[in-house]
């Protein structure tokens, strides 16, 4: 049913867009025929934007039905586990190499 409604609404916008576009050439002067700019491409762009929006709406509906929005507070912890639990910092700079004190070493050798 939802898909049918979505398809119908998309078809409606496409048809409205195509019907409103003016393809007929308009004569401004005898020697020059100017073709007015067609807004069909703009309508295609609007339809694609609508498709993106509709896909978002469908995904949102699916997410709601499949329980993705339940227990949101505990969902934030799903990236943690027993191996890398909450509270464990997982990134540090590598330590600087211990510098050899060449001068002192030379002195010892000398």
């Amino acid at each position, binding site marked *: 049913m939802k898909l049918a409604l979505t398809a119908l609404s998309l078809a409606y916008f496409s048809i409205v867009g195509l019907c409103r576009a003016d393809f007929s050439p308009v004569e401004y002067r005898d020697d020059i025929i100017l073709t007015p700019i067609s807004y069909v491409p703009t309508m295609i*762009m609007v339809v694609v*934007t609508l498709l993106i929006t509709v896909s978002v709406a469908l995904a949102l509906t699916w997410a709601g039905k499949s329980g993705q929005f339940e227990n949101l507070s505990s969902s934030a912890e*799903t990236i943690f586990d027993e191996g890398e639990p909450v509270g464990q910092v997982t990134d540090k700079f590598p330590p600087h190499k211990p510098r050899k004190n060449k001068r002192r070493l030379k002195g010892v050798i000398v």
Partner: protein
Amino acid sequence: MSPISAQQSALNPDADSLTPAQRMAERAAIDRSCRTPCLVFFGTSMFWLMLGTILAIIASTKLHTPEFMVSLPFFGDVGLLTFGRIRPAHLNTVIYGWASTAALGVCVWLMARLCRVQVMNTWILVTAGALWNLGVFVGMLGILLGWSTGVEWLEMPTQAAFILFTSYALMSVWAILMFANRKPGHIFVSQWYIFGALFWFPWLYGCVQILLLLQPVEGSVQGIINWWFAHNVLGLWFTPIGLATAYYLIPKVTGKPIHSYYLSILGFWSLALFYSWNGGHHLVNGPVPAWIISVSIVASAMMIIPVVTVAINHHLTMKGSFHLLKTSPTLRFVVFGAMSYTLASLQGISMAFRISNEVTHFTHYTIGHSHVGMYLFFTMMMFGAMYYIMPRLVGWEWPSARLIKIHFWCTAVGGVVMIIALAGGGIEQGLKLVNIWLKEAPTEANPSGTPYSFMEILAGTLPWLWVRTMSGILIFIGHVAFGINFVLMLLRRGERRLTPTLLGEKSSSPKLEAVTA
């Protein structure tokens, strides 16, 4: 049962009752499965980053010193060195060569981690990576040889676009397969962002290729479609991946869950609903239907919802952990990127309104805004992600902490200076162009005042452009430091440490080493 599934089943007999060692082994196996495709994407993105930065410096220098690199020794004047080719070559190299390639690598790793399955169908990813780089190479060559389409952000010839689209379609197919085979459980917010990016961008790219290059539309409609794409490529491709990275890495590095998971979900869905209506605000006062511009301005204003939710969430998650910025290279870059996202978005919203757009558009201010978004936000985010991911892929730590620090400070300072220069120069340029900043104030004899001539306005931007070039050189030094560290890491230079730091102390446990060996 496929070998991978069998391996996973053996590794993960009961997902709910795994011991810490088993969990770590599972994670290590997932990381290892990402190694080949991720290294293909990261390695090639490094090459494009270097090339793109060199092209940027050449283009930037030409703006204030036009005689710079006009000809080559023995070759004389060379067309490919003209600003009109170098500048789009830089743009396309960093957008498609560096940023998108690095983003694809990060997507692969994050998808595998969040789906909690090893990467399947590696050949799809490697093929997609090879095709993507081939597409960028063909496109770059086309631009430099003068076959640019002339459409901003889509200058690559159609042949290159076809290769890129095929590669991208392969990536999307792979993402769908991974998503379908994910382990049951909650879909983390980063996954929503990544899946959205991989799903929407082919639509956007394919649609625009048809309308602008295959069956080109006429007149001002080109401008509408061009800016719709140029803006949405940021909002529906780079932004979701950047935010997915931040939403995973900030909690993971600090060891703290996201402050408000509810806000993160709200941020994603509001971005998804509002962003695709953006783009038309670049055509304020242009010869296009006013409703397109108005819809776009409204959508830009609505973007305040996802931006504020993300900003609040990131800040409150970091609250109490800011001291970790001193000790974690990943966090430094990622938090810097997250703060820049807020700045870029609020700046973008403010620029969408007609009153500000009339001053700032068609000036260096807009270029500065692009760099806040693409460099300070997205590129820094990718650097942070690579600092986290690479050691886990190759089982070796970054060889030099000093090079990481040089990388951070050069890119951060260089980036900020560049933005200040472009914003300052752009505002001066804009105010003079619309005759708000006058050469001589109005007097009784001259009630409208004396405006600056175009050449005077141009000359006024020169100091700002010099500063921009200097900042670009600083950024390049940072990139070289990163490149050296990257290559040294691949060559396994440096000492193997008994207690790895980047990998977490626990990873040196004998159990894990036995599994990962």
